């Protein structure tokens, strides 16, 4: 009975955790509808989570595009389908690699920072000080991060995809010797608005996942420095795993609205 009970407890605590995330999301929405948006903080957060994540995202995108193009070229070259590298790389970057890798990098950089900052505020009573000053911590801390992520994440994903495709193009045409015209023609022929929409929607959803997971960990941190450390680690791990799982369901759902290759 012990293993069954263990699994039961695990499922129960997971359901409770999802419930907590949903409550945090609901409180955030309630705050936004009450007009508790502080534009100055939103801009500050866009700088923190968006502007300052660019280097990480650009490097991730560039090297992913380049390495993916190389591997694809080696396989396709044997079939004499060199010019198919373009569409394969661009569609993959738009639909999967761009949003997922960008999401994972942002979960590491921004998610860790968010949970560490909020966790430190929690254990040093700064959250209680906010509440005592009649300011709802969700309004002051979560809403600006949520809105900043909603704005920044699609842009970061777009940058990641753009630079990935550019790196793949330069590598394939300048180093591996594939014809530029055919590469571009095939790429543009097989890549459409549906792929762009899918990438940007995924980016936005991953941004929301990162914000709520990280803020929830931070707001519920316990036991001093150890608690903050644990909250930060869990924010990155849970955030990253959620991105991978949510990505699967998003792919299945979004494929209905934006089918691949049509």
């Amino acid at each position, binding site marked *: 009975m012990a293993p069954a009970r263990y699994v039961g407890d695990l499922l129960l605590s997971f359901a409770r955790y999802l419930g907590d995330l949903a409550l945090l999301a609901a409180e955030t929405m*309630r705050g936004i509808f*009450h007009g508790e948006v502080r534009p100055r903080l939103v801009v500050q957060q866009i700088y923190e989570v968006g502007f300052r994540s660019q280097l990480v995202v650009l490097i991730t995108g560039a090297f992913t595009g380049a390495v993916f193009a190389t591997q694809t070229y080696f396989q396709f070259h044997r079939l004499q389908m060199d010019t198919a590298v373009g569409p394969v790389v661009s569609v993959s970057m738009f639909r999967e690699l761009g949003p997922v890798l960008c999401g994972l990098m942002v979960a590491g950089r921004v998610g860790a920072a968010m949970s560490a900052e909020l966790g*430190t*505020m929690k254990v*040093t*009573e*700064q959250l*209680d*000080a906010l*509440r*005592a*000053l*009649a*300011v*709802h911590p969700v309004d002051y801390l979560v809403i600006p991060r949520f809105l900043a992520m909603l704005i920044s994440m699609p842009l970061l994903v777009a940058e990641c995809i753009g630079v990935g495709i550019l790196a793949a193009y330069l590598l394939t045409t300048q180093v591996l010797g594939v014809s530029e015209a055919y590469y571009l023609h095939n790429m543009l022929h097989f890549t459409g608005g549906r792929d762009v929409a899918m990438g940007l929607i995924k980016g936005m959803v991953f941004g929301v996942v990162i914000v709520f997971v990280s803020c929830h960990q931070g707001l519920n941190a316990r036991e001093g420095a150890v608690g903050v450390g644990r909250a930060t680690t869990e924010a990155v791990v849970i955030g990253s795993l959620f991105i991978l799982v949510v990505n699967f369901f998003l792919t299945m759902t979004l494929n209905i609205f934006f089918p691949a290759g049509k």
Partner: protein
Amino acid sequence: MTTHAKPREIIAVDNLVQTIGGQEILRGFSLKVYEGETLVLLGRSGGGKSVFLRHLIGLMQPVDGTVTFNGQNISGLQERDLARVRRSMGMLFQNGALFDSMTVADNVAFPLRERGETDEVLIASKVQTALQMVDLHGHQAKMPVNLSGGMRKRVALARALINEPRCMLYDEPTAGLDPIVADSIDLLIRRLQRKLGVTSIVVTHDMKSTFTIADHVALLHEGRCYFYGTCDQLRASTDPVIRDFVEGRSHEEP
């Protein structure tokens, strides 16, 4: 012949019960605080004084019992409804709880900006007055990390007072301060009471401070209100628990 109107109750705590980590910290604590008075709450470390104080401003919700502020039962209120109550209260936390991403001036100005004040000249002038009150004028640009514990506490006091609350809660306001600053904080609490009629609830171990500021004293012992009375009644008490606390006796062999 003159008649004195009975002072109005501003806070009434009835039968408060709180459990933390399976341990019952408060076991039916009841207390009344009258408008305009300074009430000092004494008790041993870890006895639940700070926990009690947090219930008064809704930072903790009781397991049982009620907290009434200004005639309104605030236990069980939602966070957004509590904000209205908190606007007329201020709280000084034990370690100050300053926002460490902001300068001293921004910390003190925080309540003003949050209540919609946009006139930066007015904000700067109010911040200056508040910092002068706690003897910290000229430290506006410093970050909290560069302040000593005592200075941090005084900045937090300036932040709590800037919106002129009707009721102030102090969690060990003089702990960790040198005797001169501690005395100036005591006098400040007295001054606020006399000039602005601020009701104060002060949690402390400091007996000197207690006798300087208290109109009434309550002693929290084993989760209940063990003593309630004036400073004179406290001094005159022959109860061993009270005497031990007032005279600081542990009964241990040296």
